[in-house]
């Protein structure tokens, strides 16, 4: 991967009062690849992505977006540069149909009125383009969809707006086996279409299925960011729980200092 990464974090730090949640994290997210962010509870995963989303700001360090320094000061700025989020709690309206949810806040108009026909056609094409095949009708209310289908709608909604990076916060939590498979396949397709995907998960099984690169956070420090092909699941578990694994992944200096 010779080209510059889509998103690069350089030594970012974040503290809440006396608690150092992120103590100098450097990691990269490539376009066209799925980067997983794993770590135990309290490792700082959520804080990290919330800072990328503009919900919080990093105290120190820089965010490099497509080779340029950026300051993501609000969620609006994040989406204007092309970063879209799929929140854990989905942020869909159950009482609206699939198309209405996908276009919520960015409706198309024909004169004074909504251009329902063109939105429906566009929504259908986007879903079909991502091979989301399980949704029978785009005029179906989201309430009637399964968890996996809802997650698919949420993800599709995020990629409709020329986004370059999609950040997913535990997209498969609370999903069954078949639905998880469906969502992971969708995540994979996003990357195959050239988007960058940053994907937080507690589930190593899922991570190993879709990720190209796996960033392991532990206690606010990035322990390692190996390629999937370069790491075994056994090593990953060790990295997550102890911060080191054999001689290939020695303990990071920051963690060693603390110990």
């Amino acid at each position: 991967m010779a080209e510059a990464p889509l998103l690069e974090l350089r030594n970012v730090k974040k503290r809440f009062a006396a608690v150092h949640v992120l103590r100098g994290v450097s990691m990269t997210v490539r376009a066209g690849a799925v980067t997983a962010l794993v770590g135990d509870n309290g490792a700082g995963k959520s804080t990290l992505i919330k800072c990328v989303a503009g919900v919080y700001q990093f105290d120190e360090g820089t965010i490099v977006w497509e080779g340029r320094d950026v300051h993501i000061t609000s969620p609006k700025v994040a989406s204007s540069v092309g970063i879209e989020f799929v929140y854990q709690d989905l942020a869909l309206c159950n009482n609206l149909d699939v198309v209405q949810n996908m276009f919520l806040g960015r409706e198309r108009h024909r004169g004074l009125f909504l251009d329902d026909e063109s939105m429906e056609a566009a929504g259908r094409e986007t879903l079909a383009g991502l091979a989301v095949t399980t949704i029978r009708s785009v005029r179906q209310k989201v309430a009637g969809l399964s968890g996996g289908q809802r997650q698919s709608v949420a993800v599709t909604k995020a990629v409709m707006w020329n986004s370059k990076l999609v950040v997913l916060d535990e997209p498969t939590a609370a999903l069954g086996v078949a639905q998880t498979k469906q969502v992971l396949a969708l995540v994979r397709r996003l990357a195959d279409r050239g988007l960058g995907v940053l994907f937080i998960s507690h589930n190593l099984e899922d991570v190993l299925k879709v990720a190209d690169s796996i960033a392991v956070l532990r206690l606010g420090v990035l322990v390692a960011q190996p390629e999937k092909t370069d790491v075994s699941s056994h090593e990953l578990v060790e990295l997550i729980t102890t911060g080191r694994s054999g001689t290939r992944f020695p303990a990071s200096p920051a963690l060693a200092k603390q110990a």
Partner: protein
Amino acid sequence: MLAKPSPSPETIPAAGTLAAGESASPEPGAPEAAAVLADAGDLKGHLRNSLVRLRAGDTGMLPVVGGLIVLAVIFQSLNDNFLTAGNLVNLIVQGAVYMLFAMGMIFVLLIGEIDLSIGFIGGVAGVVMAELVFGNSGVPWWVAVACGLAAGAGIGLLNGLVITIIGLPSFIVTLAGLLAWNGVMLIILGNGGTVPINDDNINNLANGLLSPTAGWVAMALLVALFVADLLLADRRRRRRGNAVPPAGVTILKIVTVVLAGIVVVAICNVDRGRLVPIRGVPWVLLIVLGFVTVWSVLLGRTSFGTYVYAIGGNAEAARRAGVAVNRIRVQVYVIAGLMGGVAGIVYASRLRSVSTNLDGGTLVLYCIAASVIGGTSLFGGRGKVIHAILGGLVIASIDNGMGLLGLSAAARYVVTGIVLLAAVSLDALASRGRASSGLS
């Protein structure tokens, strides 16, 4: 829940092999997708979809239409005056006030809130209008009506601003409004207690009748508008390659509306007078249908309408999507206030006066009942303006039917209360059904 904790080391090798198998067999490709996504275009598929929705708790207008039929059968069997032309027209005129109030209430219910002050908003609007045309004031009737409406919308604006800016629950703010605007109404009415209305134009709003021919013409225009809109929408959808409702459904809708129009006008044009001939469609029916059309278009075809539903469904999601949630909420209260004003003016017109007897408390409960009975959810996010008509008819039928039977107001309150409770229970059970079906 199905969320898995971080797997223990011994389960992971299995995961690794699974991963290899997975990536080799992707999901079915895109060409197939389009076929799957298109809606079932035939009548059978449409019926099946409706059945699925029904089972999921989306009962639509079914309960209320059924309820109306049951009421009609009961009252007609107890007193055969119920289904006479004269009484049915009465029913429309009586129900119109509830319908107009309920239209405003439905907007507020849709965003998951409530406006308890709407009854006395109507009272204030009515008394403002009545005072302006009282005596030989020389104020044109339409100026008086406009002032009444402005008073209603203004109170709605105040409600909305207090609720959103201070961040108080709508229940409390509008409960305060119920008391305060009752007081204001009484103050304006003064010691007399009654302000009669002698302006014919105003009294005709509720009591005036179209000539039989004009009734047919008006109904033909409305039906033609509806049919043209339906057919044009279908054509636009077809041109875009979207799923079009099966022809059978469209034909069924058209036939229903045409028949309903013919039946209503035919009934209204029957001579129902005892001494002098009285026939024709009441003006107020056109007022009601006009507002239903305007509000339905606003809710169904504009961003504003989508946002109203979105706020009721998931306000946080709406906010994240960039919807100016509080601005929409204020606008909803203005609409509620305006409709309170319209209903209050029609009410005053029907009674040809405004008096201290106006009970805004009962009116507000009746209009909540009408909305919920019609099919609008108390829990926000689900409902249509048309529900106001059906629910208003139910409330008016109970009132009217029990009045025909000579039952006391007390008995009517009991029955209306029971019907409201039944409707709310149905709503709650239905939303529980929706919730569980959503997880399947």
